[in-house]
């Protein structure tokens, strides 16, 4: 650090800038919170502590948002997507990085196509295909396509990790006649744990926050993800500001709580996700 940055003025301006940025990040949430405590069907001010906070709004919203069902539904979808997607991505990443799979370069190129593909580009045919498979409206209609859509990112992520992995030990094990599975299980997998856990967090976020797929592929809001259910909740209670804000806060509370508890890992995963 240069000497100048430790002067008092610099330190104060640093804190001030950070405070301003933090304020900007939380202010919409604070505004929702104060509105959530206003009397229902009233027009609350943008940001002011209500004279008589209506904590009961949260109880009403709990019922109105069908919160427990929605939460369970999200958990089911996450359980359907994340372990399977992480396992498949890990296996494929290992295969492409370490096993010299025939046509590996072609496979890489094909996966690269899917990397920047917006989900909207596929939603139309997915709808008709899943309808023909008889899956439309079930949670499988979201779980299966989402696994497929997460593959390019996941495979490249794990492949990059396995490419960097220890090679001397692997070579030695190969000479000793260890099978691909043994090398993977005993040497490579333990070394890949950090990449694996980061990928798990990223896949969890992608699934939990998924909106488009549940919106289109599952009619019944109570079978969607939390994000999908939130959209439906807005449609129903859009005019009742207090209830809408209370419900939205309830719905984002679990993911916010998980984030705050695991914040160190989340921040690391998101930063690694960007620059590795």
């Amino acid at each position: 650090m240069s000497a100048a940055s430790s002067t008092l003025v610099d330190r104060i301006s640093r804190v001030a800038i950070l405070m301003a940025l933090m304020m900007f990040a939380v202010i919409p949430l604070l505004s929702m919170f104060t509105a959530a405590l206003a009397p229902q069907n009233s027009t609350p001010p943008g940001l002011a502590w209500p004279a008589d906070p209506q904590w009961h709004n949260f109880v009403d919203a709990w019922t109105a948002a069908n919160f427990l069902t929605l939460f369970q539904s999200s958990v089911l979808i996450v359980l359907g997507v994340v372990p399977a997607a992480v396992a498949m991505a890990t296996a494929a990443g290992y295969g492409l990085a370490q096993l010299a799979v025939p046509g590996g370069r072609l496979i890489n190129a094909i996966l690269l196509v899917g990397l920047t593909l917006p989900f909207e580009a596929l939603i139309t045919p997915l709808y008709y295909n899943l309808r023909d498979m008889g899956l439309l409206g079930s949670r499988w209609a979201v779980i299966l396509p989402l696994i497929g859509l997460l593959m390019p990112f996941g495979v490249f992520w794990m492949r990059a990790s396995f490419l960097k992995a220890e090679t001397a030990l692997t070579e030695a094990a190969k000479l000793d006649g260890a099978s691909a599975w043994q090398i993977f299980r005993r040497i490579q997998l333990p070394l890949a744990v950090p990449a694996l856990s980061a990928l798990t967090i990223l896949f969890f976020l992608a699934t939990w926050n998924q909106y488009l797929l549940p919106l289109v592929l599952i009619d019944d809001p109570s079978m969607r993800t939390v994000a999908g259910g939130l959209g439906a909740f807005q449609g129903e209670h859009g005019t009742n500001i207090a209830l809408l804000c209370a419900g939205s806060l309830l719905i984002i509370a679990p993911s916010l709580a998980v984030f705050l508890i695991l914040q160190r890992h989340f921040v690391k995963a998101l930063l690694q996700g960007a620059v590795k």
Partner: protein
Amino acid sequence: MTPNSRHPNARHAPPRTADAQQTGATTKISTGGAMTLNAATASTGKVVKKPSFVEPDLDSRKSLPVPRPARRRRRADRWSGVVWVAPALVMYAVFVLYPLGQSVQFSFYEWDGIGPATPAGLDNWKAIFTEPELFGSVIHAFVLILFYTVLPVSIGLVAASLIRELRVGPFNTAARVVLFIPQVLPPVAAGIAWTWMFSTDGLVNQSLRAVGLESFTRAWLGDFTFALPAVGIIGFWLSLGFCTVLLLSGIGKIDPSLYEAARLDGAGRVGEFFAVTLPGLRQEIAVCATITTIAALASFDVVQIATQGGPGYQTMVPGVEIYRLTFLEQQVGQASALAVFLAALVLLVIWPIQRIGRHE
């Protein structure tokens, strides 16, 4: 993930390892739709094997299988690798490649999703450029890049270079966490929160009234002129914290001696910014730009929640238009043409940004 990348000066550590080079030649990407899945590193080049400085896991060494004679033939080995890759490839083929092919095919037909499809030649494709509603949605997506990408990266750069680094400490940890909140919430929640902020009685208008700008108050998301910038500000809110923290972590990796050298050369704060900070952050800037640009071009969640493309078509973006055409207007062919066009557009715009990041 390498031992190098943990070292604060890794980037400038003299003997650059093969890995560091590799990082420079990677492709950053992000899956579309929500910004939640942020990016990946796709190494396309060959990796030069290097001696690792990681102390191998002693336990795993101890528990290595008893040596067996190596009898397996090389070729059989290679084919057995297919088993590892197959599940991922099958899922990808069935739920991504095949539908992508169908989208291309549908784009040359007129189909209502129920009856028989009739060939339409290039009509759907021409319409993207001639129908104001469709072409407008593409233009709007580009306007959103200004808010999702250009502003957050610029302001993030200025803020990061003023803050310089997030030192270890409770306040800095809290700052990092709070700045990340918009990135972790479902974009749908951001849409609802900001719909409330921009509403007639929301905080934006309340603030304007408080400073005597009553005449400027309006229902922002319903205003023909201001709806699109208002949607843009939601995206700005989503991107800003993430970009700032990412750029800060990049600044932390710049060799402090470069700043001292610039100071000795008589560079002021501004000179320092252009001579040291900006070049040193090339890669982080490219990453931020890539992720946020994809989020802008492929935006759906926020727009669908906040405006559904309205008022009129003022905030219509390709993502919402595809949804609307397919599920509300039964114009599957037209929706598919726009979908394929959007996918190609993302690639086209991302490509030059990637080149900036790669070049050093």
